[in-house]
């Protein structure tokens, strides 16, 4: 049994089988049983994912426990992370997610954390702009000019006093950005389709790494 599972053909067969059940009902009319398999596969994905989170959780706790027992520098931070996560899990499954203790933890750490990181992005974009927006070559100059026009159009102050930036700004937003998004979409979609085909043919490198591992043992 174990030798079958270790073979790459077996895993490839699963990938191909799943792909077939997903693609075929999308393009042609199929009996209800086939589309039932299709929706079962789609429903199964989050279930597998949700079980996998426990593996991640376990490895995290183990990592922090090892660090704490070895007393590496700042081990107490890691221990705090581990204990915090454990407390949240215990609270979540005992008193529930609507209990004051649970919302206390999320409102004190997670909600402000999310909002803060999102707000920090503007700092990083500013310093990136200061670093990159230089007339170094044609590409970076174009990058800068387009951004310049957009800023002048977007800021209420400059839009009011310098209205001639509105037209080009609007045009850049509605047409240039749209054309680029379109081409990006084409390019990525074609890449995606070919990748899907290569995956089914067993040629995708990342997954081959996954499959070939046991052969060399």
């Amino acid at each position, binding site marked *: 049994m174990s030798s079958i599972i270790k073979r790459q053909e077996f895993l490839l067969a699963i990938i191909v089988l799943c792909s077939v059940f997903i693609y075929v009902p999308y393009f042609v009319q199929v009996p209800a049983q086939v589309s039932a398999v299709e929706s079962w596969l789609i429903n199964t994905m989050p279930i597998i994912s949700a079980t996998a989170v426990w593996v991640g959780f376990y490895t995290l706790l183990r990592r922090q426990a090892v660090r704490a027992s070895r007393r590496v520098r700042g081990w107490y931070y890691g221990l705090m992370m581990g204990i915090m996560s454990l407390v949240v899990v215990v609270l979540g499954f005992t008193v529930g997610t609507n209990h004051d203790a649970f919302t206390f933890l999320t409102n004190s750490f997670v*909600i402000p954390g*999310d*909002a803060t990181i*999102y*707000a920090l992005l*503007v*700092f990083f974009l*500013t*310093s990136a*702009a*200061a*670093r*990159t*927006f*230089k*007339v*170094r*070559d044609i*590409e*970076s100059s174009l*990058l*800068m000019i387009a951004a*310049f026009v957009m*800023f*002048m159009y*977007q*800021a*209420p*102050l*400059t*839009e*009011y*006093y310098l*209205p001639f930036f509105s037209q080009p700004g609007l045009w850049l*937003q*509605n047409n240039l*950005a*749209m054309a680029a*998004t379109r081409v990006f979409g084409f390019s990525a979609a074609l890449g995606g389709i070919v990748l899907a085909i290569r995956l089914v043919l067993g040629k995708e490198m990342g997954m081959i790494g996954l499959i070939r591992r046991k052969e060399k043992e």
Partner: protein
Amino acid sequence: MSIFKKISTLDRKWWYLLLIIFVVVPLLNPIGLPLKVSAYTKEAYNTVDALKTGDVVLVNFDVASSGYDEVKGSISSMIPHLFTKPGVKIMFMTDQDQGYIYIQKVIAERGTLMAGKTTWPWYQLEGKQYLVDYVNLGYFPGADKAIAALANDFRGNVGNKDFYGNNIGQWLDDAGVKSAKDIDLVITIDCGGAVSYFVNYFYLQYGTPIICSMISVSAAGAITNYSAKQVVALVISTRGSAEYQYLSGYFGEALISMDAFSIVQVLLVILVIITNIAFYFSREPPKGGKP
């Protein structure tokens, strides 16, 4: 070291400090720089303002904590404005698990508890009372699948219970909501991409007009919808929120932040110009690869 060289190699911490100063000072002392109202927002205001007695509005809160700060201005002005229209029936829904928090938040901010009531959902806002003029249908998980299901069979998917377990069957009958066709306007507050679902399933099937308020990252996509006339009006990000607050008279944080909003963008432009001058006069070989 020349001044130019100094500027072009300035530590980024100074940039950050400048940014904080230019945000905090105008926030605490708004000066009221001029603001030009865009056509997108003007149209949103007019559409809401033109609602008549008997119209039914579906408001979707596609709002999550990460993007809330960008759309809270439009929520806190558009929703109260909507509530001032006499005889208009309002249904709230959300396709985000935390969306209900923000629905309650906007109502609690400007509204008051109804006489003799102490808990959710019994709040009144601008004279509209819960289960008389508005209801909260709750959370519909499943993104586009959920909206498609609502469009196909509205009553079947809503059921007869609201988010709090009250019976709303009679209310829906009285409001004349038999199917998705009976909805006269959809307002969606987007931190994700709910507008495209409403375009696909509500506008394309029933021609329901849609107003969308969204975070700026999604603006490009929504403008495409607007140009194709699939969406009647847009309220784009903080800027649009400020315009709506200005139009509707519900002044608030978004309008206050507009000064800082202008100043920071102009500051950035000036800084880029200065660094370029500095760069020009202190040119050094470019390091690293292409950007």
